[in-house]
C-alpha cells in the first residue's frame, strides 16, 4: 500500500513574490494547496500606539508609511478625518489638487500592481515597463512636494504648497502619453496567452463570499459587487466628476487584473477633468497651529487603490488622539487568501497573492 500525507512548506517571509515580509504557511498535497495560512506581523511598528503620543499633525508622516505606494491616499484619508472632527473647510484649489494627486497615485499604485504581477508570473520585462511609467508620476510628485514616496503633501486645511509652474505642462504631457502606454501594456500583457491562461479561472471568489469576508476595492469589484466609496459616499469633490466604476464578473485573478487596468483609464480621465476645472486661489485655509479636536469620535473612509481605507479617531479634547485606528484594506483582504488558494497549484498562489495586491506596510501597521 502506498501511503501519502500532506506536508508543510513555508513561503516567505523572505520571498520575492510576497511583496514584503509576509509568510504563507502552505499545507500541500503533492503540488496542490490544501491550506494557505497567512502569517503577518513581521513589519508591525505599532503605529496606532505611536499615534497616541504624537500630536495630530505629527502623525501625518506615519500615514505615508502605511500603504507606501499610495501615500497620497493615506494622507487624504487621515486629513479628512481630522477636518471632519474640527469642521474645517478647505479652499477649492486645494480640493482639486488633492484629487489630482490621489488619482495620479492610484495610477502609480496600479502600475506597480501590474509590474509585480508580471514579474511574479515570470515576465520580468513587465515590471520594467510598469516602473518606467510610474517614474513619470513620481517626477510630478517630486515637483509638487519634493518627495518621491513619502509625500506628506496633503495637510490639514489644504495641501503643503501650490504646484510649481512646470507641473501643469508636465502633467499634460503625461496625460497625452498615457493612453499609448496603456495600449502598449495591453498588447504586452493582456494579449499574452500565457498570462491569460495563468489568470483565467484561477482563485475564484464569488461576489457573495467576497462581501462576507470583507473584501473591498478592486478585489471586491472584480467579483461584480459595485462598491466604490467615491460613488456610494462621495467624499472631497468626487461628485463633480464623470467617471465609471469598472466591474468584473467571474471574480478570478484575470478579472482583478482587468478591473485595475480599466481603473487606471478612469483615473486618468478624472485627473484630466480636474485639471480643466481647477480654479486659481490659495491652497491652504487658516487653521490653528496646534489642533485640538472637540471631544468625540469619527470614522471616515476613502477609496484607496487597495480598498476601503478608514480612520477611526477618538479625541479627548487634547492635542493628541486618545485612540486612532486604521482600517487597512490590505489586512482585511488577506483573509480571503486561504479559501482562494485551496485546490490550486503552488505556482498559482503567487498569482492570487499578486492580484489581491496586499501591501505589508499596511497589513502590519
Amino acid at each position, binding site marked *: 500500500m502506498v501511503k501519502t500525507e500532506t506536508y508543510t512548506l513555508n513561503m516567505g517571509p523572505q520571498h520575492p513574490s510576497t511583496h514584503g515580509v509576509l509568510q504563507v504557511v502552505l499545507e500541500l498535497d503533492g503540488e496542490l494547496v490544501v491550506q494557505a495560512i497567512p502569517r503577518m506581523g513581521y513589519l508591525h511598528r505599532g503605529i496606532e500606539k505611536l499615534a497616541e503620543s504624537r500630536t495630530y499633525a505629527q502623525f501625518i508622516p506615519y500615514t505615508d508609511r502605511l500603504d507606501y505606494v499610495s501615500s497620497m491616499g493615506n494622507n487624504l484619508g487621515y486629513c479628512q478625518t481630522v477636518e471632519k472632527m474640527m469642521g474645517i473647510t478647505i479652499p477649492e484649489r486645494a480640493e482639486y489638487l488633492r484629487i489630482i494627486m490621489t488619482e495620479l497615485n492610484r495610477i502609480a499604485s496600479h502600475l506597480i500592481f501590474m509590474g509585480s504581477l508580471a514579474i511574479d508570473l515570470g515576465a520580468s520585462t513587465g515590471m520594467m515597463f510598469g516602473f518606467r511609467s510610474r517614474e513619470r508620476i513620481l517626477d510630478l510628485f517630486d515637483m509638487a512636494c519634493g518627495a518621491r514616496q513619502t509625500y506628506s503633501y496633503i495637510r490639514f486645511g489644504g495641501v503643503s504648497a501650490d504646484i510649481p509652474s512646470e507641473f501643469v505642462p508636465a502633467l499634460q504631457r503625461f496625460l497625452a502619453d498615457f493612453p499609448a502606454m496603456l495600449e502598449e501594456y495591453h498588447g504586452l500583457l493582456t494579449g499574452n496567452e500565457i498570462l491569460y491562461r495563468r489568470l483565467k479561472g484561477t482563485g475564484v471568489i464569488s461576489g457573495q463570499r467576497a*462581501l462576507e469576508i470583507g473584501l*473591498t476595492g478592486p478585489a471586491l469589484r472584480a467579483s461584480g459587487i459595485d462598491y466604490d466609496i467615491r460613488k456610494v459616499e462621495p467624499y472631497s469633490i468626487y461628485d463633480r466628476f464623470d467617471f465609471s466604476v469598472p466591474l468584473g464578473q467571474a471574480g478570478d485573478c484575470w478579472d482583478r487584473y482587468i478591473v485595475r487596468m480599466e481603473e487606471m483609464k478612469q483615473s486618468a480621465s478624472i485627473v484630466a477633468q480636474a485639471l480643466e476645472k481647477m480654479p486659481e486661489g490659495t491652497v491652504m485655509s487658516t487653521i490653528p497651529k496646534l489642533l485640538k479636536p472637540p471631544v*468625540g469620535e*469619527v470614522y471616515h473612509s476613502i477609496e484607496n487603490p487597495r480598498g476601503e481605507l478608514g480612520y477611526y479617531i477618538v479625541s479627548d479634547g487634547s492635542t493628541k488622539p*486618545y485612540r486612532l485606528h486604521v482600517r487597512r484594506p490590505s489586512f482585511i483582504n488577506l483573509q480571503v487568501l486561504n479559501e482562494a488558494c485551496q485546490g490550486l497549484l503552488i505556482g498559482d498562489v503567487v498569482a492570487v497573492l499578486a492580484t489581491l495586491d496586499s501591501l505589508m506596510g499596511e497589513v502590519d501597521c
Partner: protein
Amino acid sequence: MSNRVVNNVLAELAAQYSEDVKITGKEAQQALLVESQCLLNILRILNTNESYQFDMLRNLTAVDYLEYMEIVYHLYSLPLRQAITVKTRCNMEDAQVPSVTAIWPSANFQEREIYDLLGVKFTGHPDLRRILMPEEFPGHPLRKTYQVGNGNITGEKR
C-alpha cells in the same frame, strides 16, 4: 451616518430590548450602545431584517477607556446605502464579548487584532490567536496601562 437610521433602528428595537439598547453620542456621532449579552441577537436583526440589511462590517475596533473597554462596530448596508455604529462594553479585568464571525466572517482578523493588541477575548471565535505580535509576547500593547520599555514611549529617557 444619518441620525434617521439610528432612530429608526432604536424605535424598533426598543420594544423588545428596551433595557439593553441605548443611544450614545450626539448628532453625527450617534451610536447604538448594546449590552453584550444581547449583542448577537441585535446584530443578527440588523444583518437580516429587510429594513436594515447591514450586510457589510466595514470596520471593527476597540477603545480602552480605563474603566471599561468599548468595542465599536461600523456597519454598512450595500442595498440601502446606509451606515450605523454599534457599540458594546465589557470590563477590563475579564474582557469578554461574543464573536460576530458567525454573522460577518470578515470579523475574523479584526477580532484577532483586538485580542492581540487590547486583550479582549471573543467567545466563539474559530481561531483566536495573536496576529501581529509574536505568540510569546507578554501583555497587550494598545492598553493604556501597558508600559513600554522604561515606561516612556516618546524616547526621551532612552
